[in-house]
């Protein structure tokens, strides 16, 4: 057992509230309290009903914690028999290209007015969104997330989906012309 006696205030800020050691596989509750995931998991297991934050007794649950990904950690992580930490949830930034970007959402809508608008604007919307992803400079969060969730995978998926939509739109257009 490592004795970490003379800790500075700095590291104490990152101590797990349950084991009082530096948090490993850290997760943070919505109320902002830091825990090791194995510690918090055991606490939640101890009380299947009425789960509360061990610090402030706010409501807490497995789905309401956010994992913290620092730099360089969690590679040698022995997750033992415990289920892995819950996944992080990524909230998309608010789109600053209001009109055309939303185009492909309306492609398959019932409303013919939106339909024609959507198809007309689609290629532009596709380029705008793929440019935004590839440009990335104004979006550092995106890079961090990719580090954790497997590099480039995310981007490739996005492109695939965009292409799929493009093809579907073309087929739909053809069908419209034929009919």
């Amino acid at each position, binding site marked *: 057992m490592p004795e970490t006696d003379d800790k500075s205030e700095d590291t104490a800020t990152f101590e797990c509230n349950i*084991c009082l050691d530096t948090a490993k596989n850290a997760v943070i509750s919505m109320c902002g309290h830091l825990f090791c995931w194995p510690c918090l998991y055991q606490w939640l297991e101890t009380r299947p009903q009425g789960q509360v934050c061990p610090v402030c007794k706010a409501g807490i649950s497995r789905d309401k914690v956010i994992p913290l990904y620092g730099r360089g950690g969690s590679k040698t992580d022995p997750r033992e028999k415990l289920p892995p930490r819950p996944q992080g949830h990524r909230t998309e930034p608010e789109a600053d290209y209001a009109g055309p970007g939303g185009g492909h959402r309306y492609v398959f809508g019932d409303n013919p007015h939106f339909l024609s608008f959507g198809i007309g604007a689609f290629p532009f919307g596709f380029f705008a969104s793929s440019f935004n992803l590839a440009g990335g400079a104004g979006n550092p969060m995106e890079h961090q997330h990719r580090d954790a969730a497997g590099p480039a995978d995310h981007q490739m998926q996005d492109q695939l989906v965009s292409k799929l939509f493009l093809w579907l739109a073309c087929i739909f257009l053809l069908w419209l012309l034929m009919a």
Partner: protein
Amino acid sequence: MANIAMQRIRREFKEVVRSDEQSIKLELQEDNVLSLTGYITGPEKTPYEGGRFHVQITIPETYPFNPPIVKFTTKLWHPNISSQTGVICLDILKDQWAAAMTLRIVLLSLQALLSAAEPDDPQDAVVANQYKTKHSLFQQTARFWAQTFAGAPGPLNPDFQKKIDKFLEVAPRADRHTAIQQLSNFDWNIDKAIEDVYKSD
């Protein structure tokens, strides 16, 4: 999993030692980390002022996911503490325990409990009843107990002492602790207290 318990206790022990709070203290019992003695001083402006109360703390293997088992080893007259066994009725030692609480918080909570009793959620019904119906007698009794058992300063209530002596004359087999307990239970009514002793014999 006892490992996490031991590690926590070591850290908490250091925390209490370092915090340098005068009113609480923690000691290991014979190098066994999972068994400790805590001390709290009676809070000011209460009948317990100036007394020093010992609690025995047993750490379960599942600590800190389950609360420590705490009871007073110093005899105490309080609605939420058994006057016979020292068992404590305190929510954070039961269902309101949370894993982030520490022994320091437990000791400070016990101190707070001495300042603010909860007679409607009693551990000792006799004491709680006296607290509610004869509050001034309750305070005198609690003070007498603190002076007798916890070393609180000040002159002892002469009336109570007289009654104890008389009780011991009539019931020579009883010891002083029993006399105090019996008399306190019966609101210092010596006839009823003695009657009860003979009834149970």
